[in-house]
């Protein structure tokens, strides 16, 4: 039986792929959109039997991240897996399917005064894609990234079996935490079908305190003064060129008092707003995006290597750099080399998320990978035939 027919027997939405659906130019032979977990499992089982290379797809907001797949026989589209399975507000947990858009999840939670404390840097992105890429924004300062908020995960393995880890309680140390392992795994270990998250109450008051800073040294001092203080920010962001913004969340009286303390720390020219400044939580512009991680003291070196409208930095040690479209491939490669050199003394990393096709061949997306051998061994266990998003991830995984 042809794979299309075999898939059509187990899934109601299967069709040939179209050129426009290419994953970084690699056209999928087939596209399947399972309607529930059971169908997703059947699709993955049939794909295993036919030896198909499978790439998961959510809302395509980050499908251009990482390297192109070596091949793509089947795109598994999660858009029909879009249910809020269970929201127990009294327990501050929600279980949602992978294809659910993050904003829609946010709306459902907001009805009960709750939120998933993750920013959505790319509008439209899904729960599954957010986990698979480990995506987060400024709130990572206080709440971390998906790895810190996922408390249960359901995946379909390469062989089509459904596996769960964690659960629906926040405090739980039974078994390995596969949720953390799948965060940022780029679809190379299995198909994420649903996730359970820890939630937080929506704060009743928020304020953004922004202050201009003159140079790298001033930026560093401003961020450090906030880190050392007791104002307990939800986020501290440097946005280039030359602005430090502190987000304060809490009860109205508390936020008002902390705004006063923060203004005193940051000094002249400080502005206070109850709405987010333009561009808050979005990735910087450009058609190459670099994700930077380094300890807070690396900030001056980062800003010496790269500053301008396309640099953002979260105070605990994570930033983004966008590079303009008119930069030559060799220019991008040279920039990346210099950036990594500046970060190396801090044990920092610079990972390219996306870059134009003409640049891709000239650069190393990931940088040094000290634990690559172990990663390959884990990959070999989960996907012995290397059929899941082959080649998309570190070291050609």
């Amino acid at each position: 039986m042809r794979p299309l027919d075999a898939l059509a027997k187990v899934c109601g939405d299967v069709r040939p792929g179209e050129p426009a659906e290419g994953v970084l130019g690699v056209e999928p032979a087939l596209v399947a959109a399972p309607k529930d977990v059971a169908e997703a499992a059947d699709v993955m089982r049939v794909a295993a039997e036919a030896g198909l290379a499978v790439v998961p797809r959510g809302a395509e907001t980050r499908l251009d991240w990482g390297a192109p797949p070596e091949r793509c026989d089947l795109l598994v589209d999660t858009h029909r897996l879009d249910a809020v399975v269970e929201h127990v507000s009294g327990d501050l947990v929600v279980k949602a399917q992978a294809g659910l858009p993050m904003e829609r999840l946010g709306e459902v939670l907001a009805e009960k005064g709750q939120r998933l404390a993750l920013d959505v840097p790319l509008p439209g992105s899904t729960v599954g894609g957010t986990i698979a890429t480990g995506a987060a924004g400024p709130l990572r300062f206080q709440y971390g990234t998906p790895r810190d908020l996922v408390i249960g995960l359901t995946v379909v393995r390469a062989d089509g079996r459904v596996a769960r880890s964690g659960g629906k309680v926040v405090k739980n140390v039974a078994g390995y935490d596969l949720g953390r392992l799948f965060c940022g795994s780029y679809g190379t270990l299995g198909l994420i079908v649903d996730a359970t998250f820890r939630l937080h109450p929506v704060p009743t008051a928020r304020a953004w305190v922004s202050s201009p800073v003159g140079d790298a040294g001033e930026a560093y001092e401003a961020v450090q003064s906030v880190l050392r203080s007791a104002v307990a920010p939800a986020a501290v962001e440097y946005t280039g060129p030359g602005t430090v913004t502190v987000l304060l969340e809490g009860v109205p009286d508390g936020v008002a008092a902390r705004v006063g303390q923060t203004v005193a720390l940051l000094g002249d020219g400080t502005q206070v707003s109850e709405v987010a400044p333009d561009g808050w939580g979005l990735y910087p512009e450009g058609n190459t995006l670099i994700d930077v991680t380094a300890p807070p003291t690396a900030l001056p070196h980062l800003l010496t290597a790269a500053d301008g409208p396309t640099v953002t930095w979260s105070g605990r040690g994570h930033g983004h750099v966008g590079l303009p479209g008119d930069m030559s491939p060799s220019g991008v490669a040279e920039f990346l080399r210099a950036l990594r050199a500046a970060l190396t003394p801090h044990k920092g990393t610079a990972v390219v998320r996306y870059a134009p096709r003409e640049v891709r061949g000239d650069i190393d997306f990931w940088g040094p990978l000290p634990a690559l051998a172990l990663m390959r061994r884990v990959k070999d266990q989960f996907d012995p035939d290397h059929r899941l998003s082959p080649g998309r991830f570190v070291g050609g995984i």
Partner: protein
Amino acid sequence: METELQALALRLEALLGPGQVITDPVRLRTYECDGLTNHRASPGIVVLPDTAEQIAAIVRECASEGVPYVARGSGTGLSGGALPRADGVLIVTSRMRRILEVDVANQRAVVEPGVINLDVTRAARPQGYYFAPDPSSQQICSVGGNVAENSGGAHCLKYGFTAHHVLACEVVTPDGELVELCADDPGYDLLGVFVGAEGTLGITTKITVRLTRVPETVETLLAAFDSIEAGGAAVSAIIAAGVVPAAIEMMDALSIEAAEAAVRCEYPPGAGAVLIVELDGPEPEVAAQFAEVERLCRDAGAFEIRIAAGEAERALIWKGRKSAFAAVGRISPAYIVQDGVIPRTSLPRVLARIDALSAESGVRVANVFHAGDGNLHPLVLFDDAEPGAEERAEAVSGAILDLCIEHGGSITGEHGVGVDKARYMPRMFTDTDLDTMQMVRCGFDPAGLCNPGKVFPTPRMCGEVPGVRKGPHPYEGKADIF
């Protein structure tokens, strides 16, 4: 086997020096159990390394001989996670106690695995920082053990677990190689799965922990209620109001009685339950929310509320709670400390069922719990001199775990699975779930020599095992009696 172990001991002594390898049976018995004393096995060999390189060399020796090994920090674990193997090597990290760096500008510290949890806080406190995970054993437990168990504590309701406070671990892999796993490095989040793997994926030799800014203010109250139900209603109301306390702890009448007998904590007489609520953070935030918590407790029927005026009074409020486990010894000759989790909203139903279980079986159960996150620590009391009493207590203790699973909870919130609860794992997870978790194990440790017999009730066969292995398969070893 014994002669093979003797030969191995000689080689380890050559690696480490004479004082750091223990083979004397009397001294070996010191290490026969961890904090869970009903599982015991005298280790074949105990080694006391000083460096990561020594641990790597020890692991390489074990790997080449096919000898199982277990890492142990302070031995305070409550699930038998550090239970040694009679046919193996116990690697004790207690000599590796250096705090290598306290880096305030980067809000982190680098420590060796044997460093005591509270010592990290002691080192950082003068500069206004602390290490947030605070298991009850924090005065003696090691950071390496915290990593293995993903330790929590009373304040993890707000601050999270060890996994949220570890930025990197240097690890000796089961191949005997040293590798650093960083949360932020590109690639798979191997650190994320290493933390909490109960020492089955390797041995950590250096840990970079996040330091947390000491909050500007802390407020603690004790509220006394007629019943557990009323206390539970107060917890629900506090959570529903959008307050995230640093801790919410509850004790029932029996555990209050025990604490009173042991430490004279002078909780309000006649209380059917006491609630301890602690808020911390910026002063103006805490002031506003604390007033609300107090009101919610009164609305839920609190007949007495005490507010700690300063550190001494706060310590007094916590004294009863912190001593609760040991205090039960005052009212019962023996007891089992259970650790289960339920969704917070199931609290009233589950407590009613525990009451019923206790009444039906005649086994007394004292309840102490982290009420904010639904983590129950029922203390199941029995008289070990009475024939059959321990078995009845075990049965009640197991039935409580079944209740937790039935309500969508977990068989362990912080004590870990270890050897103690491996048999309960199939009640919470399917065979496929457990098989999938063990794929990670097979990736790290295909020979299954690193802390075998823990977490999983049955090992997964990992396919072809690289390298030469002498001696019997670890799972056929003579210590495999659990």
